């Protein structure tokens, strides 16, 4: 996690100081991109989210209240942008697409074993079937390592709601991911059993 951005830089950036703006981007880009990547799991989509987030932030810098951490403000905007994208997109992906080669591709860098990639892709597909806000809570908590309080601030909901979402969503993800992996393995086992 990068060092917290000082509000002095934010104030200078709000006044139109180009150097302060560059510093602001340089100090926050890595964490912001990681957050966008963890929420979208698509590098190109993460790029778009990051660009749109900075555009919105720069447009509202002069109206920004210097309370809390600036990174929290960025995370809030980025998460809301991703939520908008999820709401616009189709709600669930078919199971047949969940473990396709394209779905496995984002996990290429994190796990070499085929089984691991399949497992992660199944979990990701199951997470993708959650409602937008619980989905964001799950990814912010497990993938981003955000606290329940932080998630509550980002999503503008009480902490109790976040915990409820996490408990419920974790069970759903386990069940759905397990079912996907079972369905995926079943035909191959059947084929091997039939062959002499």
């Amino acid at each position: 996690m990068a060092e917290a951005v000082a509000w002095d830089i934010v104030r200078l950036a709000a006044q139109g100081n180009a150097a302060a703006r560059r510093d602001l981007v340089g100090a926050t880009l890595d964490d912001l991109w990681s957050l966008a990547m963890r929420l979208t799991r698509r590098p190109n989509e993460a790029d778009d989210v990051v660009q749109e987030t900075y555009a919105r932030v720069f447009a509202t810098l002069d109206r920004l209240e210097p309370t809390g951490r600036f990174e929290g403000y960025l995370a809030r905007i980025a998460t809301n942008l991703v939520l908008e994208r999820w709401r616009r997109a189709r709600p669930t992906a078919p199971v047949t697409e969940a473990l396709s080669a394209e779905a496995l591709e984002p996990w290429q860098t994190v796990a070499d074993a085929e089984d691991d990639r399949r497992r992660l892709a199944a979990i990701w597909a199951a997470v993708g079937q959650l409602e937008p806000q619980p989905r964001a809570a799950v990814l912010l908590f497990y993938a981003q390592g955000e606290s329940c309080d932080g998630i509550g601030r980002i999503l503008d909901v009480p902490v109790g709601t976040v915990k409820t979402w996490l408990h419920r969503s974790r069970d759903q993800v386990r069940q759905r991911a397990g079912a996907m992996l079972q369905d995926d393995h079943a035909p191959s086992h059947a084929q091997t059993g039939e062959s002499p």
Partner: protein
Amino acid sequence: MNHEPEATDLDLGDPVLERLGRGADLTPARRTALLERLAPAAARAPRRRRWVIPVSLVTAAAAVVVAALLLWPARRYDPIPPTAIFADLLGPVAEMETPSAPAAPVQDESSPLNDMLASLWSDLEGPLAIAMDALEAPKSLVPAKSAVPETPAHPSEPRKGESE
């Protein structure tokens, strides 16, 4: 196959789900490309909200104000007197009369005395009529005595069912 540890309901930790966070680091090459992409937005000066009024709108508004100021006095002091309007309306009637024979003076019937008498009469007219009716009423209510006594139409014929 990885072993999936059992998590209690009170424990939100889940190593399998936490693996979703891996592989989300920004590579140097992508970082450089992204910085180039973000450079225009970062270099752009912030836009202050301003009220921009089109020049044509301002010109039109000014023209309306000037025209109103110029035309307002002319409308306010109308050169056409009211007598001219009545002259236009009553013109044909005036032309029928000869200028040598002036119209006879019309007697003015309204005077304070006439008005007072008319008012008094209108107040007394109703009660007076009622009083006159009351004086004549006893005469009209007393029936005149008839010379012929009232007799039944057929006194000799007995009614049906009556005993004789």
